[in-house]
């Protein structure tokens, strides 16, 4: 990963002040101007390019987990995944499939990981959305993922917790609600859920806050859903 240049506290404050006065368009332009990956794309920073088309480029990671770890980068500046257009994301996955094939053949490895870190809490360090493709060999211990079994109750809780917003995003009418009217009212199901139990006490407030926001927004146009929340996360990269 490329590191950001370090800045002093004072510079940081000045920057924050400046950002507050900017319009969203200006902020987007500013982010793009500051973005190392946009500079790689326009060629002002040299890189080890493997592939390029009109939507994306592929370069070797300069600080790779292993030999052949590549970065698949959309040309458009997206800070986080929710901003990525369906067309771009679909194309990126098709290119990822090709790349995976190339790593398997070219490096004679026995597997690949496609990996996306979306948001700082997920380990995203670049301010430009990108996809990692990592060549793997048995026993290399690169991404040690240990799965555990969750019981039926937990599965049901997860399903109930996510169902409403997922259905909204997918444009599906809730299966659990018998009448269409129910959708307009705040969902009763969510209130009964013990969020604390599922996701730890830390997130309970967040969960409830978001729920309120959603209820307020529910009459608005569909495009706005969850916007504030995602923008907040995207703006962490300012």
């Amino acid at each position, binding site marked *: 990963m490329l590191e950001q240049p370090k800045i002093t506290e004072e510079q940081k404050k000045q920057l924050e002040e400046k950002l507050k006065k900017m319009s969203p368009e200006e902020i987007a332009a500013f982010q793009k101007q500051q973005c190392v990956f946009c500079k790689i794309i326009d060629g002002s920073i040299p890189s080890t390019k493997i592939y390029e088309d009109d939507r994306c480029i592929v370069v070797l990671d300069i600080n790779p*987990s292993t030999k052949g770890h590549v970065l698949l980068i959309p040309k458009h500046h997206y800070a986080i995944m929710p901003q990525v257009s369906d067309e771009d*994301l679909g194309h990126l996955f098709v290119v990822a499939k090709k790349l995976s094939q190339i790593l398997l053949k070219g*490096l004679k490895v026995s597997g690949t990981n496609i990996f996306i*870190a979306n948001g700082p809490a997920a*380990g995203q360090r670049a301010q430009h959305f990108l996809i990692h493709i990592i060549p793997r060999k048995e026993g290399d211990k690169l991404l040690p*993922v240990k*799965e555990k079994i969750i019981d039926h109750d937990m599965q049901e809780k997860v*399903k109930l917790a996510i169902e409403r*917003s997922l259905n909204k995003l997918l444009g599906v009418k809730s299966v659990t609600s018998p009448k269409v009217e129910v959708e307009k009212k705040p969902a009763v199901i969510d209130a009964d859920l013990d969020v604390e139990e599922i996701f730890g006490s830390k997130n309970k407030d967040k969960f409830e806050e978001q729920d309120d926001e959603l209820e307020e927004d529910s009459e608005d146009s569909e495009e706005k859903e969850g916007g504030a929340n995602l923008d907040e996360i995207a703006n962490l990269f300012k």
Partner: protein
Amino acid sequence: MVCEFCEILERKSGKEQILFEDQDVVIAVRDSVLTPGQITVFPKKHVPILETVEDSILKRCAVLVNKVSMAVFESFGSGGTNILVKNGLGAGQIMPHFGIEIIPRQEGDGLELAWDGNPLAEDEQELTLHLLQEAFASLNRPDEVKPEEKKVLKQKKGEDNYLVKSQRRIP
């Protein structure tokens, strides 16, 4: 070998694990996860690895993964999501059915989905670059693909002829 993904689709366990399905793709909650709240997106068709997934279905999967990720942010108050494909035995794939995992993340959740970077020596980097560029070029070379395509075309032609013939036979 029993396929966990196909069993979810056939609802063999007697419990409903599916959140959404369309013609080609399923969104489900699996029994075995890295952290509660993890959701899996997978094609209905039993295809073992990424390389065998049709482009159109892969694109649909990608779009659905993004929607699930957004829903995870909204519903669980997550600070982030990881998207992970384990492709091939070396990458820790257990079920021979391609799938994409959406993993909810929180600061300090203890999930170690990260790595220590090791910059390559310059000559090694050159070599890797060359190997991959070459592999890419050979994948796109048209003469390597042609023979198979021709075969498929011929078969299809034969089938058509057979169907046309059998139709003609019907009075």
